[in-house]
């Protein structure tokens, strides 16, 4: 059933077995696991079916440190959450990402990747993905080949691309028809009230933007509001501890991470035919699924070089203005089509004769392979740093909740990771004579200002067996509140170099299993 929070009588207190806050990828995944089970489940969502500006504005905040995305643009606050504009690229994290690595401070998950595999496999169809196989060899046919990197340097894997699935649209009908799940739209959680002696969450204060207020008293509750909002809600609930709920160790909001990205930084100069096209073909499909071949820094190298995880996609270099005009004119002429903007094209070509004549030469005057420049799209693992954090700001949103500030900075290992990866790539490409590589950053320079995040907010309520070092335990339950769970990438102790949503959904399924067991 789907209802609107305005339909609920002000001041009501609603009991339920499980209350999930936030109907994004994580929240909807957990809710669906309870469909048809004899439990009374509520799924509360701040937004409606579409983006509404006053609700989206609740996400506004500030950032310090490196330039970060505006906080109300990098997330979406309505049914389906941020999957309403995600890109859909999925890959599981690597085995090494779960390890405690001596050279990566604060690394280590409470379990290894093998433990998560059954849930990764279950997550695949939920995200509309194919088989749980990411090894690139599986996805190529016999006349294709992978880059011949020396074992232990780099390896190739694929990203499977989801449609990209919009959770709100894809699962709305199932949620609407469900007899035991109540989806409540326009319902904002603004406060969590805990009974201190029993260390149990007692009730949730729910507010709407038009002034309605009621409460929910769940047996068990899961916050699934994304990494920034999960931390914000805990930090804002100060009844028990002045620093926020679950924040006895001071870890709530800390270890905020994203994947640092440098787009078109570093490039590989080669000639056509030497680098298999699958590495830069954006339309490579297998079993009707788009696949992206990504080159990963192997774990052997990560250990040897003491750097974090790194991955690269290759994009053909952007064409110059002149070559673009030349191509457009040639295409139109060959199809007998009318050419518009003649003079602009001619002036582009005349201003860029070197590149145009080289293009012409390789197109028409020789059989030799044409030069090909591939640029790197670098995405790598950020070392968890307690000083990167979500804190509460003085400003308040229209519901009276303090807004957030994000501090996002990168450190020396983050710098060394991309530098090392480029250097190793250059050595491997040279050794195998695939071409030559231009490094994107130089030895002694700081990371450029163009490094940005990848809209993958992680950390802030990290998982650790030791309450002094984390916010939630291995089951994603708050160390200090025994019926309050966290879902989403906020529990990631480290984030690897791959996009997070497949892992978010796998962890959500794992959490649903755990809660089912507990409530049974």
């Amino acid at each position, binding site marked *: 059933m789907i209802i609107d929070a305005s339909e609920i009588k002000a001041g009501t207190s609603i009991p339920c077995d499980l209350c999930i806050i936030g109907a994004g990828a994580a929240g909807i995944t957990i809710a669906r696991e309870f469909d048809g089970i004899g439990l009374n489940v509520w799924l509360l969502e701040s937004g409606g079916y579409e983006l509404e500006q006053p609700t989206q504005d609740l996400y506004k905040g500030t950032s310090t440190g490196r330039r970060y995305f505006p906080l109300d643009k990098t997330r979406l606050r309505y049914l389906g959450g941020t999957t309403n504009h995600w890109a859909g690229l999925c890959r599981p994290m690597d085995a090494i990402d779960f390890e405690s690595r001596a050279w990566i401070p604060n690394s280590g998950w409470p379990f290894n990747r093998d433990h998560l595999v059954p849930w990764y496999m279950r997550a695949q169809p939920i995200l509309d993905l194919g088989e749980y196989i990411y090894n690139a060899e599986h996805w190529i046919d016999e006349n294709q080949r992978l880059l011949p990197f020396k074992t232990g340097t780099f390896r190739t894997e694929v990203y499977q691309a989801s449609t990209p699935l919009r959770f709100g649209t894809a699962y709305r009908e199932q949620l609407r028809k469900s007899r035991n799940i109540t989806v409540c739209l326009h319902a904002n959680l603004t406060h969590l009230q805990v009974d201190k002696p029993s260390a149990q969450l007692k009730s949730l204060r729910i507010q709407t933007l038009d002034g309605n207020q009621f409460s929910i008293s769940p047996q068990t509750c899961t916050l699934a509001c994304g990494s920034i909002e999960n931390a914000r809600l805990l930090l804002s609930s100060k009844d028990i501890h002045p620093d926020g709920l679950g924040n006895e160790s001071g870890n709530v909001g800390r270890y905020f991470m994203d994947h640092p990205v440098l787009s078109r930084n570093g490039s590989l100069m080669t000639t056509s035919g030497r680098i298999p096209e699958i590495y830069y073909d954006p339309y490579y499909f297998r079993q009707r699924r788009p696949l992206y071949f990504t080159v990963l820094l192997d774990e052997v190298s990560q250990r040897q070089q003491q750097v974090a995880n790194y991955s690269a996609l290759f994009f053909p270099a952007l064409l110059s203005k002149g070559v673009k005009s030349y191509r457009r004119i040639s295409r139109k002429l060959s199809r007998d089509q009318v050419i518009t903007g003649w003079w602009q094209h001619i002036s582009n070509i005349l201003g860029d004769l070197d590149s145009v004549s080289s293009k012409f030469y390789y197109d028409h005057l020789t059989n030799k392979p044409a030069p090909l420049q591939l640029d790197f799209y670098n995405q790598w693992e950020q070392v968890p740093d307690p000083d990167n954090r979500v804190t509460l700001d003085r400003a308040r949103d229209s519901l009276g909740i303090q807004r957030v500030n994000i501090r996002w900075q990168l450190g020396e290992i983050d710098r060394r990771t991309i530098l090392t990866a480029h250097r190793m790539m*250059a*050595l491997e490409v*040279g*050794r195998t004579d695939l071409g030559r*590589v*231009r*490094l994107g950053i*130089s030895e002694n320079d700081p990371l450029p200002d163009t490094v940005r995040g990848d809209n993958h907010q992680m950390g802030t309520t990290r998982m650790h067996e030791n309450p002094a070092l984390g916010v939630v335990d291995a089951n994603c339950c708050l160390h200090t509140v025994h019926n309050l769970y966290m879902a989403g990438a906020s529990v990631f102790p480290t984030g690897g170099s791959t996009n997070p949503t497949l892992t978010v959904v796998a962890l959500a399924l794992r959490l649903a299993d755990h809660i089912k067991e507990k409530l049974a």
Partner: protein
Amino acid sequence: MSLITRRTFLMSVLAASAVSPPVHSSFSPVDMPRYFPDDMFALIKEIIGPVESIIKIGQTISETRPKLAVSLWSVEFVCQVFDTHSPPEPDRVHRLKNRYRKRITSDFEDGRTTLINGWMLSTTEVELCLAMTGKLRKLAQIPL
């Protein structure tokens, strides 16, 4: 047609490197044919790559890294390429090409590389480009 012996080449390269002249910035590949026997171009191209590119790279190297030295190996290598006194062996180009490639591969394997404008090149390539740019051009101007 000028003939270049291995000895004169070696001597002039060493002499030229002692003076260490800056490479001509207005150097254009069209100057080249005056100095070399016709088949030399084919030879260089076969072994290393287009002469124009080598010269461009060589120029950039000497502008950005003026202190880079040319080792005897590359001088010797270039001498072999240009030693037109030796009787032409049918597989000479092939042999040299293999030697050159092997050496480059081992450069990358052993980390003997140099960064030029961010591009990672093998030290052998860098030396050859240097030897073939300023030095060779000087050489060609020496009357034999």
